[in-house]
C-alpha cells in the first residue's frame, strides 16, 4: 500500500527545515537505512534515511524548498510492484497531523497543580522518653547505627577508615567487632566510586550507610547523591526506591582551612528526592540517625566535628527515635524567634541568655531537619514573637536563612514587626589563621546585634 514519507523532526527543537537535496529520484528502489534526501536544519545538514522498503513513487516537495514544516508529506512510497497512480489514491491528510494530535492532548492549565500537603506532618508533641543519660554526640551516632544494624540485617556501614581504624573521628568505634567486616566495610579513597556502588546496592535491596570522612568529600560523589539517589524513584515512576544514608561531619571544624570547612545544608536541602537532617544534641543525633536509617528514601545526615565530643542528656529507652521533618523548640520565649541548626543551636541559646540579660525573651528553634522544613513550627513561633532571625554557619547567598526569611515573609508578613534577619558565616572561603577564622563564623554577639536592630537599636 502506498504511504506518505513525512518531513522528519531531526532534533528536539526542530519545527521546520529546508529540503536541500533528493538523493533518490522517482522510481528508485529504497531500502531501510538508505539515504533518500538531505535536510538542512538550523544546526546542520542531516541525511534522511528510508525507514521502510519500497519504491519512491512521487516527490511532493522539490529540492531547495525552504520552511518545510515537520510532518509535511514530502514524497510517496510505493510497495514494490505498485503503480505510481497508487499515490493519487493516498489521502495525504491534514499536514502535520501527528504533531497536532500530541499538542491537542497537552492540557494547558493556568498553573501547575499545587504540591500536595506534606504527609510528613508528624505528631506535634514529642512522646516522653523518660530517663536520660549523658553521652557524647559521637557515642549517640555509634549507638544509633549499632541499634539499627541489630534490628535489620540489611543495614551496613561503608566508608573510609570506618572498620579497622574505628572511624577517622571514632564514630564507628566497636562496630567492626560486633558486626564483622561484611557489615562494616573499609573503602579505598574513592568517594565517587563507592558512593555510586552504595546507591546501586540500595536500589537492589540492601540499606547502606555511607560515611564521608567529612561532607567536603561528598562533592566527589555529588552526582550520585543527586542524579542517582535522589531522582531514580521519580524517573522510574515509583518502581525503584533508594534507602540510603549519607552521613559525615559538616561545616567548619577548627583551623582546617577552606577546603575542609563549609556547610552543605543549602546544597542538599535544595534537592527534591532527598531528606536532610542536621542534629545538634546527642538526642538529636541518635534519634535522627535512627530515623534516617529506617527511612525508605535517601537521607543526608549533616553532623558536626566540634559537637562529636560534646555531652548531652539522651533518652536511654532502647526504642528512642525522632521524627524527620519536625523541629524542636529548645527555649521558649515571646519577643523574638531564633532559628538555627546543628552547632548554631548552641550559639543561638547563648545569644538568648545574653538577650535575656537585656530584657529580651528569645525563643530558640532547633530545626533538626532541613528538608522537609518544619514550616509550621517556625510560623507558629513568628506569629507569637513577631520577629525572626535565622542563624547558620554557612554562607548567606541562597542559604537556609534565605529560605527561612522568605517563608516568614510569605506566611506571616502581617505578624512581623521588623524585617526578618539572617546571621551567617562571612561570604568568603574560610581562612586558616586563628583570629581570621574566629572573625568569619557567627557568634552570640552577632545574633544579639541582629535582634537589637529589630528592636530599633
Amino acid at each position, binding site marked *: 500500500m502506498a504511504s506518505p514519507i513525512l518531513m522528519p523532526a*531531526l532534533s*528536539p527543537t526542530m519545527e521546520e527545515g529546508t529540503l536541500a537535496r533528493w538523493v533518490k529520484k522517482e522510481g528508485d528502489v529504497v531500502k531501510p537505512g538508505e539515504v533518500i534526501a538531505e535536510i538542512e536544519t538550523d544546526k546542520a545538514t542531516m541525511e534522511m534515511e528510508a*525507514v521502510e522498503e519500497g519504491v519512491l513513487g512521487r516527490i511532493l516537495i522539490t529540492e531547495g524548498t525552504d520552511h518545510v514544516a515537520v510532518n509535511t508529506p514530502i514524497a510517496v512510497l510505493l510497495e514494490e510492484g505498485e503503480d505510481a497512480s497508487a499515490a493519487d489514491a493516498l489521502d495525504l491528510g491534514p499536514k502535520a497531523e501527528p504533531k497536532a494530535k500530541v499538542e491537542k492532548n497537552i492540557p494547558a492549565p493556568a498553573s501547575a*497543580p499545587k504540591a500536595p500537603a506534606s504527609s510528613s506532618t508528624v505528631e506535634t508533641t514529642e512522646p516522653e522518653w523518660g530517663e536520660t543519660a549523658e553521652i557524647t554526640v559521637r557515642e549517640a551516632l555509634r549507638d544509633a547505627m549499632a541499634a539499627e544494624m541489630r534490628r535489620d540485617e540489611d543495614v551496613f556501614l561503608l566508608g573510609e577508615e570506618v572498620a579497622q581504624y574505628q572511624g577517622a573521628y571514632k564514630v564507628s568505634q566497636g562496630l567492626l567487632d560486633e558486626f564483622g567486616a561484611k557489615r562494616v566495610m573499609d573503602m579505598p579513597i574513592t568517594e565517587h566510586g563507592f558512593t555510586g556502588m552504595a546507591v*546501586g546496592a540500595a536500589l*537492589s535491596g540492601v540499606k547502606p550507610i555511607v560515611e564521608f570522612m567529612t561532607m567536603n568529600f561528598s562533592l566527589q560523589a555529588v552526582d550520585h547523591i543527586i542524579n542517582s539517589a535522589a531522582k531514580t524513584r521519580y524517573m522510574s515512576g515509583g518502581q525503584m526506591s533508594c534507602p540510603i544514608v549519607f552521613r559525615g561531619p559538616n561545616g567548619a571544624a577548627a583551623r582546617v582551612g577552606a577546603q575542609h570547612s563549609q556547610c552543605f545544608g543549602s546544597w542538599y536541602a535544595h534537592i527534591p528526592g532527598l531528606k536532610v537532617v542536621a542534629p545538634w544534641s546527642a538526642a538529636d543525633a541518635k534519634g535522627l540517625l535512627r530515623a534516617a536509617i529506617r527511612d525508605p528514601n535517601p537521607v543526608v545526615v549533616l553532623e558536626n566535628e566540634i559537637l562529636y565530643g560534646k555531652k548531652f542528656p539522651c533518652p536511654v529507652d532502647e526504642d528512642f527515635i525522632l521524627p524527620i521533618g519536625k523541629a524542636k523548640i529548645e527555649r521558649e520565649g515571646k519577643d523574638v524567634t531564633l532559628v538555627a541548626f546543628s552547632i548554631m543551636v548552641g550559639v543561638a541559646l547563648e545569644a538568648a541568655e545574653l538577650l535575656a540579660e537585656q530584657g529580651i525573651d528569645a525563643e530558640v528553634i532547633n530545626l533538626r531537619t532541613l528538608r522537609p522544613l518544619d514550616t509550621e513550627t517556625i510560623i507558629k513561633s513568628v506569629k507569637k514573637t513577631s520577629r525572626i532571625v535565622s542563624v547558620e554557619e554557612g554562607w548567606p547567598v541562597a542559604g537556609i536563612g534565605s529560605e527561612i526569611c522568605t517563608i516568614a515573609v510569605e506566611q506571616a508578613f502581617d505578624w512581623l514587626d521588623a524585617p526578618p534577619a539572617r546571621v551567617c558565616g562571612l561570604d568568603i572561603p574560610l581562612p586558616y589563621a586563628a583570629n581570621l577564622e574566629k572573625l568569619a563564623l557567627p557568634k552570640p554577639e552577632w545574633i544579639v546585634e541582629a535582634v537589637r536592630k529589630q528592636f530599633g537599636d
Partner: protein
Amino acid sequence: MGSMTGAPSRQNGPALSKEEMERAYREMLLVRRFEEKAGQLYGMGLIGGFCHLYIGQEAVVAGIGLAMKKGDRSITSYRDHGQMLVAGMTARGVMAELTGRAGGYSHGKGGSMHMFSKEQEFYGGHGIVGAQVAIGTGLALTSAYKKDGAVSIVYFGEGASNQGQVYESFNLAALHKLPCLYVIENNRYGMGTSIERSSASKDLSKNAAPWGIPSRKVDGMDVAAVYQAAKEAMEHCRSGKGPFLLEMETYRYRGHSMSDPAKYRKRSEVDEMRRTRDPIEALKAEMIKHGIDESFFKAVEKDVKATVKDAAEFAETSPEPDASELWTDVLVGE
C-alpha cells in the same frame, strides 16, 4: 567470520543450538524493528528530547541475554532500548515511555534515557556517562551481601571507559570479588569523537588488567561469539571469582542521537559495515546453512512487525500522564 580489529573469532563450530539461534534472531530483529519505528516516531515529533538508537549493536544484547539466568541484573547507559527489550520488558511499555505517555514504564516521567523494571531486574537507563558503572557495581555488591547467586551485567560505551569512576569501580569490584560482568560496547564513536582521538589505550579489553580482572575482546557483531564469551565470563563471576570484562567490538549505524548529523565518519564506512558486518544478516546466513528455511524468517518478520506496530499504536494512543503525576514518586511514602 572475520573481526574488525583482531578479536578472535569463536572457535569449535556452532556455539548456538537451533533454539538459541532462533531466539537470538527473534530478539535482534525485534530490537532492530523497534528502533526503526522509534526513529520514525521521533521524526513525526511523537518522541522528543534525546533518543539514542541501538541499531547495529543488536548482537551484543542478544548474545549476553542468552547467557543470562533468571535473577541476573542489568544496567546500562542512555542507549538502552535494546537492553530493555532483551531483559523482557514489553515493547508497548518501552515505546509508550518514549512518547511520554501514562502507559510507559515510568508513566512518562523518565523518557528514553530513564526506564527501569524491578520485575525484570533492569536498573536503567542512565543519562550520566559512566554513572551506571559504579551503580552497577553496587548491584553486584547486593548479590555478594545477600548471596543470591545473581550476576550483574554492566554495559557502558568506549566513551564512558575514559571516566574515572569506571576504574574506581574496577578496583572495588576486584577488591570485594563482586559478581559483576563489565561489558564495554565499543562502537568506535563517543558521540562525534572516534576512539582513536579519545583513548590512549588502544586495547580496551586490557583496561582492567591492573586490577587482575580477566577480560576478552569479542567480535560484537557475531551473536554466537558474544554468547560464548558471556557464558564463560558469567560462569567466572557466578563461581565467586569476582568481576570479568568483555570488550565488544561493535558499530552503531545511526547517529549518536537523533539530532546527530554524523559528519565525523564517512557514509561509506557505515554502508560498508551494514553490507558486510550486519549481525542480523550474518546470523540469518548461518541459520540457513543449518537448514532453517525461509518460512521461519518470514514468520518472525511478521510477528515482530506486528509487535512493533502494536507498541507504536499503544504509545500513540496511551493518554499523557495526569497532571497529578507531577507530585507523585518524589519520595517513598508521599
